[in-house]
């Protein structure tokens, strides 16, 4: 089992979600996060005083998946989150030792 984590631009979330649903992904967790990569932040001006805002709002999407569908999930996310401009985000995959469904106690791939 794998955990796919994606950092994406907030306005691409609906597209990412739709493309994952098309693949048959049954659940995901999203959170509002802030950060920066090569894009860096932006500048705001208040009464003539400039402030550099380093951390930019992003969305983190987390999806648990079976080994066999990892590539499909990753490419679905990257394709639907891509705008071609700097700051589109990143996707990474980490191995998962075990998963338990809280309600039933099912373990492993059955719990995904």
């Amino acid at each position: 089992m794998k955990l796919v984590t994606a950092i994406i631009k907030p306005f691409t979330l609906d597209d990412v979600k739709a493309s994952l649903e098309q693949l048959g992904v049954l659940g995901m967790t999203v959170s509002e996060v802030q950060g920066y990569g090569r894009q860096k932040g932006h500048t705001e001006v208040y009464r003539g005083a400039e402030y550099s805002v380093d951390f930019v709002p992003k969305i983190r999407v987390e999806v648990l998946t079976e080994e066999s569908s990892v590539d499909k999930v990753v490419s679905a996310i990257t394709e639907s989150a891509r705008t071609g401009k700097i700051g589109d985000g990143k996707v990474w995959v980490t191995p998962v030792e075990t998963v338990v469904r809280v309600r039933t106690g099912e373990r492993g791939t059955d719990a995904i």
Partner: protein
Amino acid sequence: MNTGDTAWVLVSAALVMLMTPGLAFFYGGMVRAKSVLNMLMMSFIALAVVTVLWVLYGYSLAFGDDVGGGLLGGLDFAGLKGVVGQLVGTAPKDAGAPWVDGHQIPHLVFIVFQLMFAIITAALISGAIADRAKFWSWTLFIAVWVTIVYFPVAHWVFNFNGFTGVEFVGGWIANKLGALDFAGGTAVHINAGAAGLALALVLGKRKGWPREPMRPHNLPFVILGAGLLWFGWYGFNAGSALAAGDLAGVAFLTTTAATAAAVLSWLVVEQIRDGKPTTLGAASGAVAGLVAITPACGYVTPLGALAIGLVAGALCALAVGLKYRLGFDDSLDVVGVHLVGGLVGTLLIGLFASTEVNAAGKDGLLYGGGLDLLGKQAVAALVVMAYSFVLTLLIGFAIKKTIGFRVSDEAERAGIDEAEHAESGYEFSSLRGGGSSIGRTADALAKKVTTGAAKED
């Protein structure tokens, strides 16, 4: 008694009252989220403490019979005794009062209208020392400051001979000097602006200023507050005609015209200097225009008002940058907006005042009056500024050396709301809601549950 005038002044008093909560939001939106409640409270407490003092002796010091030199009123109205059933507003025309004979209103209506001015003047100062003043020290400051600064200055500027009592003598600026100040450019704005500068110097900079970003946490609050201020300002300016007539109409229109012009000129300065017109700039421009037209609103033409607004908006937009060069942390620009705006309006009366607008006024430089009026305006502005600045420095240092004026560094870092009020302004995260009751609340609750259970048995 004129019932139409009475109704208008009563409504105006309520409008001016709303300016103080409006100011609280204007300021509250500009601070960081961790100090929004304290900022709101600094304005709100002025409603409480100034009102109590006004009833006890404040009104009397401002509007009682002069005790000498036009400097201070006596204790004729202490405790507001004997004012029920009295009328005011019989100022003879030759005294230079801007009001018309025969428009009398109940004394109590005038008292409550003027109270609202005292409240907001004290509240205005709070913007200069955002995020760092002990709450009770600030409250004590207000009490002392209105007593020895605002009440006397209001006497100088607003108390006309014979207005609150036959044979009563008023203040020196209104009667002897004859400078024009329709609604409080000197007594309210220059006064509060100079006091703000003095207090910002006494308390010192916020930790981390100006290196750390201290950007406004809620600009919608700021524009809401500016809107409430603009709305309430009609009571402040048009209400100062103290009659529901032509002069109130003049003040209403000039107030609107100057404010509109100041919004535009502030935004143009921002567009040229920073490349973008901002929400904060629009709100600030509106307030700068309102401040500048305040002393002039009953004396200038609509075109004169546009000119005053244009100058005030542009000049204040540039003036708010001064604190970074000079190194004083006037956190929310009380100096840049109120002191500078107040000076602009008070001095420009010397150019734009016209007796065609108000026969009780004077002609300025552009209307054939020469430099005489401009000179008087400058004297009034400078004396009020110097008096307020020096006295505020003294009061501030006295509080600093005795009970202390600033919260601890740790409290300032963590947020003054938690340190001074044991509250937080916002509860956005569901995680923080998971706390459990502790202390007295929990004890009382436990006791109640136990007694209830015992009864059931």
